[in-house]
């Protein structure tokens, strides 16, 4: 009997449960999708480094999921609380009829469990389906090989989702029981009959608080954009975010106070149709919801920033990698320079050991290959060999010359004592030729700086435009250009060349050559041969590592860099999406529930308007305006926040070589709009139904 009553109740109020149901289903689906990533990415062609990154990502997601489960748990308990409130009269009736509290609790529990199972099933189904889409998307985003794609189902994610949401539903049931145990008949009967008091805020205070809030926001905005010239530290981000929260609250608090005062001055609009009612409702709603609207605004801001950063990360990485890896292989080996000889003398007091180390240093890259029984000419089609120099007499401090104190004030944490790398113009031009970069011709007394890092560029530009002279290998050189030459000499995932000094080949001293570099392309006619060559090189690299040559030698291939970038990109993008989705769902669901409970409290008012002869159409229009504006307010301020937030993260990411693109903004907007507008429509349609009911 009780079971039958529960099922009938659910059927009857299925549309009231719409928001609750949607939130549960979305929560379950998102939870499954992200926890299933391990299984989903297993088909992607991954190298060792990517596999490491994936393993790390899975660990981070596991940890994050506990936090997410808490967020979703709170949300679900909150939503179920709201639904209970709506049914107080029903429970009062049961109690008047003499039903025991135990029986009422049983009805509630059965309902909660039934809805839980239903939404868990729907959520998992959607999750399993969407995770297939997700992996296709991921593979496409990161240009991964999809040839081994197969339908995957992660049983671990499946059971984990069931476990976590099972616990959440259990908590919901416990809260239901507590509520029933505490319920008093008189309170149940009287709900909704309270008259609302309109609190008026002091207009002077409102203006003061508004100016204060706007001032705080402006200061925070300035702080994260033009006020930001120094290297970023974590504290410099937290303070503006905190100021943003305070400013947001003050702005909403004060706007809710004088919004109506301003609108009521426009009598033509204010007294037109149901506008008086609409604006009064809205103003009283915003007034009572200042805290939640502020929270939602901040959450939306986080969502927009996180999503756009995540999408930018992967777009930029792909674009960067194509440009920054113009050749297949980059091998570097340390050589025996005067400075190394000195270091060795200190490190190995034993003559024999020192000699062994010297022998390894003395070998060229070609020698190493020969020792392994391999031929560099066989492996690589066209390749170039270039050399780097340094000198104990030429550190970063020396490079800054007379400007060193000024630079130190701005950037206290640079490696001022580190030896600066040097390259001859002849060598650099061979690299530039192979990479398709701008060439440099230098006279014997000239130098230039090659750089592509955004943070270091202005520092070197200052040095160059100041005409600072440097002294290397006994020669005094002056800058040829006023600015750095944009370029690089190593394969990398990001713009990481922070200053390579180019000098004339007549100046370079062979005794100070500390590094040899080979850059080349595989000898391969097609993709298959190229893959074989890559595998062959990896195998050689493995052998060299076993022979303990690796500390002296570094190998980077285009494939390696790309796949590890997939790793970084995937980690950042996925975590961003995960957090972004959950923030978005939570914030929007709270707003939707508040709007819905407002509609329930206002049914009497709509009934009254109907008695005055207002048409159904205009009632719905008024409802649409109220809820539309309620959803719009936090979004507008969140977008303003995000404009500055994104500019800030753009600056932050520029240091990593990541750029925000229009495409990533569009994608963020699309995701946001689908979920936000979806929630708004569900709320509006449910509310429309609620206000149709007689009070």
């Amino acid at each position, binding site marked *: 009997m009780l079971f039958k009553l529960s099922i009938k109740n659910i059927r009857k109020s299925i549309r009231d449960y719409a928001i609750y149901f949607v939130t549960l289903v979305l929560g379950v689906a998102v939870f499954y999708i992200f926890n299933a990533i391990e299984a989903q990415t297993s088909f992607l062609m991954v190298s060792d480094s990517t596999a490491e990154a994936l393993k790390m990502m899975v660990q981070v997601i596991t940890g994050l999921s506990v936090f997410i489960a808490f967020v979703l748990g709170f949300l679900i308990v909150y939503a179920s609380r709201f639904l209970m409130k709506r049914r107080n009269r029903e429970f009062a009736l049961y109690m008047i009829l003499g039903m025991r509290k135990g029986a009422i609790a049983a009805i509630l529990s059965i309902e909660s469990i039934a809805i839980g199972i239903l939404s868990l099933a729907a959520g998992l189904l959607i999750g399993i389906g969407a995770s297939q889409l997700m992996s296709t998307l991921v593979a496409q985003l990161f240009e991964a090989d999809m040839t081994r794609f197969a339908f995957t189902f992660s049983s671990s994610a499946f059971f984990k989702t069931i476990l976590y949401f099972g616990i959440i539903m259990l908590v919901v049931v416990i809260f239901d029981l507590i509520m029933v145990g505490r319920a008093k008949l008189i309170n149940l009967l009287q709900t909704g009959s309270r008259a609302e008091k*309109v609190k008026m805020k002091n207009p002077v205070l409102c203006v003061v608080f508004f100016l204060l809030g706007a001032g705080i926001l402006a200061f925070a905005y300035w702080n994260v954009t033009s006020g930001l010239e120094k290297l970023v530290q974590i504290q410099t981000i937290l303070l503006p975010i905190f100021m943003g929260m305070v400013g947001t609250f003050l702005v909403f608090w004060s706007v809710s106070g004088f919004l109506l005062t301003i609108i009521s001055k426009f009598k033509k609009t204010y*007294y*037109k*149709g149901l506008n008086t009612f609409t604006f009064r409702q809205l103003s*009283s709603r915003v007034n009572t919801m200042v805290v939640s609207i502020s929270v939602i605004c901040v959450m939306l801001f986080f969502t927009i920033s996180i999503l756009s950063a995540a999408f930018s990360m992967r777009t930029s990485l792909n674009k960067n990698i194509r440009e920054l890896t113009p050749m297949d292989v980059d091998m570097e080996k340390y050589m025996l320079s005067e400075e190394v000889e000195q270091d060795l003398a200190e490190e190995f007091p034993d003559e024999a050991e020192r000699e062994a180390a010297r022998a390894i240093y003395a070998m060229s890259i070609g020698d190493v290959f020969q020792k392994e029984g391999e031929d560099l000419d066989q492996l690589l089609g066209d390749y170039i060999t270039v050399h780097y120099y340094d000198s104990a007499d030429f550190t970063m401090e020396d490079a800054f010359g007379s400007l060193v104190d000024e630079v130190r004030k701005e950037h206290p944490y640079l490696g001022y004592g580190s030896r600066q790398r040097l390259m001859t113009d002849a060598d650099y031009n061979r690299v530039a030729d192979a990479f398709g970069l701008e060439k440099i011709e230098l006279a014997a007394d000239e130098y230039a700086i090659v750089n592509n890092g955004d943070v270091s560029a202005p520092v070197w530009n200052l040095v160059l435009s100041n005409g600072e002279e440097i002294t290397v290998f006994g020669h005094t050189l002056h800058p040829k250009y006023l600015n750095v030459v944009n370029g690089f000499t190593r394969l990398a995932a990001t713009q990481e060349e922070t200053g390579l000094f180019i000098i004339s080949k007549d100046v370079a001293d062979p005794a100070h050559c500390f590094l040899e570099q080979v850059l080349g392309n595989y000898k391969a006619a097609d993709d298959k041969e190229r893959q074989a060559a890559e595998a062959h090189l990896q195998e050689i690299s493995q052998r060299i590592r076993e022979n303990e040559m690796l500390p002296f030698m570094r190998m980077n291939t285009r494939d390696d860099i790309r796949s590890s970038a997939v790793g970084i990109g995937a980690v950042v993008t996925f975590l961003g999406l995960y957090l972004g989705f959950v923030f978005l769902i939570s914030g929007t669901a709270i707003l939707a529930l508040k709007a819905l409970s407002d509609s329930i409290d206002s049914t009497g008012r709509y009934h009254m308007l109907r008695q005055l*002869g*207002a*048409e*159904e159409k205009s009632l719905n229009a008024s409802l649409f305006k109220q809820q539309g504006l309620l959803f719009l307010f936090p979004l507008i301020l969140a977008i303003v926040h995000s404009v500055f937030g994104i500019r800030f993260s753009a600056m932050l990411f520029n240091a990593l070589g990541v750029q925000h693109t229009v495409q990533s903004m569009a994608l963020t907007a699309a995701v946001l709009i689908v979920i936000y507008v979806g929630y708004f429509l569900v709320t509006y349609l449910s509310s429309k139904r609620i206000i149709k009911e007689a009070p």
Partner: protein
Amino acid sequence: MQNILDVQNVEKYYGSKSSLTKALDHISFSVAEGEFTAIMGASGSGKTTLLNCIGTIDRVSAGTILIGGTDISHLKGGALNQFRREELGFIFQDFNLMDTLTAFENIALSLSIKKVPVAEIESRVKAIAAQLEITEILQKYPYQLSGGQKQRVAAARALVTNPKLVLADEPTGALDSKSAKMLLERLSYLNESIGATILMVTHDSFTASYAKRILFLKDGKLFHEIVRGSDTRKEFFDKIIDVVTLLGGDLSDAL
């Protein structure tokens, strides 16, 4: 004088064929323009059902109701809303004021629903407020007002649109005797000064004594009718008491 309201042979049934309840049983009467009429009866006599049928909130089972010559039993949907908006004014026992709006806005709302030009609204609200002596409280919210003040605001809202017919359902039901007297005096003043046609439902003899004519309803049937004529209100009250006594215990316990 022209008839504003014509109720002809109205019947209203509830329930199915096997167990039929006749809430209204062959009721016919008319109300002329400028009349202040009260309908009295005990609980369950059908007086609220009758008012709901006239107010287009409920539908009759048989018979016709003409308001200003329009047969409202044939109106539907939008036309019904429009008719209610244009021709009728309502006063309820529990005031039914919008608690988020000031008194002024509550009164203005019924004008803006009727799409009255904004320029006209202020002067019309102020005029009716002066007649109901609520000018001082126009900027206050319902929760700041006494019951009597609220009901006068509700009356102003009903009358400001110049409806053909004002329907009042137990307007003094929630008021103390002093507030009730004040409200009724204002209503009969408006009835005389601007010629508002008022149809009021009540079970209270004192309230009814302010009307010019009283219809008594018992078990869904029109039982009796008395007209005040040239009587003073006190004399008219005594007459009402006589009828109520005649009606038996049903109504007398409502006194």
